[in-house]
């Protein structure tokens, strides 16, 4: 359980994070979205105790951060952006160092390292120096060290940035697997990722929280228009315009031609696929495709974070 109240962070004169309040219940997978420079990393760094907030409070599992941060750090596993682990150590030595710092009983250490090696798939690199690892493996070692103490809260800053699609899928599987038992907070700018893995999505822009909810709710909230895409066999655009402009339900129309096909994008106030089909049938045009465009998180993201 994490409770953040009125969190503010200034860097000199610049306000990086302005007045964020969030409650995160146990067991939630929460995605933090936002464009670059929105304050995602700063927020996560404050939560993990790397930087101190200018004002506001953080309470984790009932412990106030301003009172006892060392105690909070015991509950949090953190993987900073691009996994900056010591490059001059062997993976095994590094994990053992973290296990020592996290005060894992030395009789249990071996077992724990084995478990993590399997979970994160790093068994094959255990005796390689960190500096020789590929980005994907580095990320997994970082994940293993964040998981070392079996923390109840896991904070991951852009865990999949810079990875190839296979590695992204693997990291995502690991997150989902762990997420069944833990609170996970991760930042990303890949929207499909947030949509696929998160119970809840927070969108930040310019240091402020601009949206909060499940991906579905966010999508529902913002859909004030419907878009239908139609493909016809090549038809005279003027006649198409005439027909659709007569109809009152259609508020916007865009026509383009490509490869002997006519593509039309219609904007309507609500779902009007039936009416559109009837119009086409009446004109006896040859309909090849018709699809309703789903409002994606991407649209919402763009709407919320565009510059005013």
């Amino acid at each position, binding site marked *: 359980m994490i409770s953040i109240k009125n969190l503010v962070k200034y860097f000199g004169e610049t306000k990086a994070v302005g007045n964020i309040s969030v409650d995160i219940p146990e067991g939630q997978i929460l995605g933090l979205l936002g464009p670059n420079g929105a304050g995602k990393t700063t927020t996560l*760094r404050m939560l*993990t*105790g*790397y*930087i*101190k907030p200018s004002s506001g409070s953080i309470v984790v599992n009932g412990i106030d951060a301003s009172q006892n941060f*060392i*105690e909070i*750090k*015991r509950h*949090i596993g*953190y993987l*900073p*952006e*691009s996994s*900056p*682990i*010591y*490059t*001059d*150590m062997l993976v095994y*030595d590094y994990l053992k*160092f*973290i296990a*020592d*710092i*996290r*005060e894992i009983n030395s009789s249990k250490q071996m077992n724990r390292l084995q478990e993590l090696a399997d979970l994160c798939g790093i068994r094959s690199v255990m005796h390689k120096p960190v500096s020789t690892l590929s980005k994907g493996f580095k990320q997994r070692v970082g994940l293993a*060290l964040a998981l070392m103490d079996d923390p109840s809260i896991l904070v991951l800053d852009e865990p999949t940035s810079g990875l190839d699609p296979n590695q992204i899928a693997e990291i995502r599987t690991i997150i989902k697997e762990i997420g069944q038992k833990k609170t996970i907070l991760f930042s990303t700018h890949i929207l499909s990722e947030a949509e696929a893995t998160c119970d809840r999505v927070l969108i930040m822009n310019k240091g402020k929280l601009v949206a909060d909810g499940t991906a579905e709710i966010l999508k529902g909230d913002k859909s004030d228009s419907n878009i239908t895409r139609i493909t016809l066999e090549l038809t005279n655009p003027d006649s198409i315009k005439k027909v659709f402009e007569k109809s009152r339900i259609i508020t916007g129309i865009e026509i383009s031609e490509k490869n002997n096909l006519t593509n039309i994008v219609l904007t309507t106030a609500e779902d009007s696929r039936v009416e559109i089909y009837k119009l086409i049938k009446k004109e006896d045009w040859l309909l090849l495709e018709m699809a309703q465009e789903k409002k994606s998180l991407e649209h919402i993201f763009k709407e919320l974070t565009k510059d005013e």
Partner: protein
Amino acid sequence: MSVNKTFIIFKRESRAFFSSPIAYIVITLFLVLTGWFFFSTFFLSGRADLRDFFNLLPMVFSFIIPALTMRLFSEEYRSGSFEIAATLPVSLPDIIAGKFLATLFFTLIMLLPTMLYPVFISVLGDLEPGPVIGGYLGTILLASAFSSIGILASSLTKNQIVAFILSAAGCFFLTIISSILVFIPAFLSPLFQYTGVVFHFNNIAKGIIDSRDLIYFISVTLIGLYSTYIVVRERS
């Protein structure tokens, strides 16, 4: 602070020292430099003691110790690994103490071969043990004072070269200050003499262990380490 965690950090930092080639270059450089300067005049002086060897150390350490410490914080800031260290359940004083002790340990290892010098010299003549023991004690104190200055410089910047220059300048200043007393108004000269390391180091290296000299070195060390603590704390 916890002794246990300081020790874990100490172990990691020591390992980092010995796994980098810089360490061996520094050790070689130190032994060749001091060995050459000491023994090139040793037989001319005709004295069976280590005074000339110890006299070299404040100047040599002014450059050797900053080379060891420059990496300690700067490198971690640059690579970002400090973000992981700082978010582990370990307190800042533990991290600083661990890094400091690792530097001191490395210096001891570096000095180890020079402990053969008194063995050789005692064969040649009558070597008094007092100044030798005092000299080594003074050397350790000197190393700890310079290490803490070096760590402070390293905590100030991401750039290792800047850290090196800052700490070398600091250590060098404390070393030469007693040699430039002629430029300083007479009434201030005792103060300046007292500020420099050479005055205190020479006292201990004579075999006279005075609490004032011990307090000087211990205070410089603690001020350096405490300032590091404040610098790193305020960075967040």
